[in-house]
């Protein structure tokens, strides 16, 4: 198991937690835990003194555990929309005959 100093050293050299964890062969959340002593999933609370800990990130550490926090891609939805639009002749005609094409892409 890597030591706290190992993880912190990598962070000091510019690595992210994800990069450091990859190089050390451990999960990113564990790397955070080792470096800060604080679980990345916020399952512990921070005391006033904890805010000075090296390696501490304010917010967003759930992502180190693989918990997604951004929208998923939905290609099937995009395909369905294209089908709806292309199958609407009036919509196509209206776009083709509209005098001002500004904004069309």
């Amino acid at each position: 198991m890597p030591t706290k100093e190992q993880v912190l050293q990598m962070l000091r050299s510019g690595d992210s937690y994800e990069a450091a964890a990859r190089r050390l062969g451990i999960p990113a959340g564990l790397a955070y835990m080792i470096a800060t002593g604080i679980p990345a999933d916020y399952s512990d609370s921070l005391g006033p003194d904890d805010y000075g800990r090296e390696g501490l990130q304010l917010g967003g550490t759930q992502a180190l555990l693989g918990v997604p926090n951004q929208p998923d891609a939905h290609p099937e939805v995009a395909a369905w929309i294209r089908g709806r639009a292309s199958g609407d002749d009036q919509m196509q005609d209206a776009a083709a005959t509209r005098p001002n094409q500004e904004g069309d892409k």
Partner: protein
Amino acid sequence: VKLGDWPVLRQLTGPDHFGRGAAVASPTTRGLEARVASADKVVKSVCPYCAVGCAQNVYVKGDDVIQIEGDPDSPVSRGRLCPKGSASLQLTTRDNRQSRVLYRRPNAGDWEPLDLDTAMHMVADRVIAARRDGWQWEQDGKRTRRTMGLASLGGATLDNEENYLIKKLFTALGIVQVENQARICHSSTVVALGTSFGRGGSTTFPADLQNSDCIVIQGSNMAESHPVAYQWIAEAKARGAAVIHVDPRFSRTSALADLFVPLRAGTDIAFLGGIINHVLTEHKYFRDYVQAYTNASTIVDDRFEDTEDLDGVFSGLKPEKRTYDPTTWGYKGMAVNSASGQRDADYEKVAGGAHSAGSGGPGLRGTPERDETLEHPRCVFQILKRHYARYTPEVVADICGVPVETFTRVCDLITANSNPDRTTSFVYAVGWTQHTVGVQYIRTASILQLLLGNIGRPGGGIEAMRGHASIQGSSDIPTLFDLLPGYIPMPHAHHHEDLDAFLAADSAERGYWAKMDAYVVSLLKAWWGPAATPDNGFCFDYLPRITGSHSTYDTVVEQLEGRCKGYFLMGENPAVGSANSRMQRKGMANLDWLVVRDFALIESATWWKDGPEIETGEMTTDGIGTEVFFFPAAAHTEKAGSFTNTQRMLQWHHQAVEPKGDCRSDLWFVYHLGRIIRDKLAASTDDIDRPVLDLTWDYPTSGPADDPSAEAVLAEINGWDHTGRLVSSYEELKPDGSTSCGCWIYSGVYADGVNQAARRKPYLQQDWMAKEWGWAWPANRRILYNRASADPAGQPWSERKALLWWNEDQGQWAGHDVPDFPPGKRPDYVPPEGARGIDGLSGAEPFIMQADGRGWLYAPAGLVDGPLPTHYEPQDSPFDNPLYAHDRNPARRIMPRPENLLQPSGSEPGSDVFPFVLTTYRLTEHFTSGGMSRWAPYLSELQPELAVEVSPELAAERGLVNAGWATIVSARGAIEARVLVTDRMTPLTVRGRRMHQIGMPYHFGPNGLATGDAVNTLTSASLDPNAHIQEVKALAVDVVPGRRPRGPALLDLISSYQQRAGVTVSTGTSI
């Protein structure tokens, strides 16, 4: 037992000498493991209870949810959950949740099982039949193309996407009686805020309250009803803000406030009107703001007469119809909806057209006359001064029971904290909305905030605290009878009303509402796709027409009259949660069929076998012919979708697990119901079926149950162009059919093909606006009307309250929020002669949805009960109105019938039979009518049964004993409750006499784990005429010790009260 298991030995021999840690842990404790530790995955979600919108982490192991916790990254909740949210694991996993379809045959005594597919087909058959039976091609010679044969209620607890499909399918079927809890909770908010400012949603967001210097919480017990949002008030208080709580009942909100002001329920207009009078007479208003940004200088029609001129009514009252002709209320030189002259019926006056002001003020045409000195006797400012002159501190004390010195302190705190450097905010909830003058309550606060310059500025505004996860969404994408998505009004049945006439009548000349044609046509394209063409008015004729009010209370009357025969309840429990619950149940007993979709067997599902009317003998189970279908619903963890919270922000909740058994999402239910109905009608050549057969209803499905894609539905709501590119703003929508958009105000939520509502950038990585968390309508703006945070020249009124400013170098508006203004419009822009649309407003007119660009101190249009708020007594009140000859709102909507008796008030004979004022409220641990809380063991243990709060003085007067029983009686019914004797209920001196108020939570019913009589047994369907919201926050009752009688004796008790009070169907109906 091993020696090492002895805690004392471990304590003495180990490092934990003081026994504060490991030494005293038992083997059992050491064997415990946090539920989250064994989870396979964590799924991002949103709490399904109130509208604060706290973010949740859902922990999943295998096919099961094993824990739900607060998400610490959320800028809304910062990881916190209230007791309900903390117990939401039980909402989803409790044993007493129904998972199979149940069926009750007509006149049968019990349920029987039914397979899901058969049930779906049976319901589809009944929809088709009831629709046809109740079909109306026309009424009074006007085309209606609708059915009155069936109705639905529910949507505020559902996802936006579910509301969208309900409205879309049911509208295509011609069903106009589509309603949800938004009618019952906050419909008055939409009307009031919309009419005042141009949009019907909160002007700000709870986290912005931390920037307030003074916060007035009135008509809300925020610390208990919205406890997680209350953290922002705690933040403000820690920074030195003054917090004032004005409420009939002392609560935790009061305990945390600097000043608690008890007042008589039902008198808030008098209280706020008194503050307005103080602000005007003491010259405390923000003159530069008022002059530039409100309609204070606008001259009003010479024919307008105020309540001061007519002793309590405005000009235009038609007593025989209980309506006003608002023609004289307009601005001089401007016409309201001049339109085409084809508005040939008074439907709007009955329907209360102002709900459509939810995102666009009433249409005005012409140019107003103004007097910038504010001295003209007919200018709004002078009319306002005269109107409120009689609301003196002494009058406030006489009506509200608030001592002059307390009232003066409130005035001083508010005015000292409202100026260029400081801001005051108002927070309210249903304590304001649920009155026969509910709209005017909120209008009064709106007027006050405009006078003080507190709209559009940080720490200012009016925060409407909504109570259901998506009740804002179910207003925006409305499962409401009078609206189409984006607050486009449902068309009324007028002669020759085609699309052009509709647009001419309802759009505006200036402001963004002038683009209504693009919004309407894009909606019609979303619903009817290729079938919608210019030749057929884009299928405008497919929309059913309304003819007045078809609110949920009107639907009950339709049921009692036998015209409405089928009823869908989707996440709503009117047998407990709607006013006059006995009338609700009697209406349902007159149905042919009823569909209930819920988690448990709520009272609205079982009234036919165990309802109160069965006990009294008024109804017998075998005499009730209503066929009942119960469909178990999927929980928020079992489906994906978006909620719109109280700050207009959409947040996406991901599906964590598949629902079990027959549990299905409402998206699944509505989509497949529509699919089956379309299959059954596929061969039809009947014109009534064309709208549903031409409907775009082809959503991609997936999963074992063929769930429709909620992502696809949200994308349809967002809209796209002819290439399939998702539009990023409603500014891209066109009126020629080349764009499609299901709800124009939500355009942008799927910008760039990305579900913006699913964004969850941690709040600590953003500024306080947290604009990358979720997506707020319109255009992701967080503080509405934020142009008003800068002066007319475009610079902040003060550095301390800077939010938006004009950047001359960049030639655009800059600041902390998305500008609620055309980004490149200069502050010194002056519209050229004849300019229309948004170009018709100047660079210093911040209220861009209003036709005159101003905040409305005076409402020249949009309201049906007057342009200025006026104090009237509640429908059932122990007091006369000391201000005017008219006691009650003369335009209020009442429904006098044997099931909905009203009471004598004030000095009328018999009024003293009901001497006490009852107000209802919400508990932290329960939710609305209880369907989502009274079956949860944790919550039921915390609040196990109904109680009535009375003061020690009233308890002594009436012989009520703490923890004993009391019976509470109105003209509608009688209920019992445990007595809670408490100083929280403050006796007041009103009109020179001692006045007692009692408080009761309204969540309870006989089913579930936490039980009690339904408090709505006492209330009446007496409605605000603008919004059709019921008055349940102030009514008169009697309270006596002991339990209520059982069986027929209960009816005898009610009857004896009615006789003593002389109650008949005509009681309480005078103007």
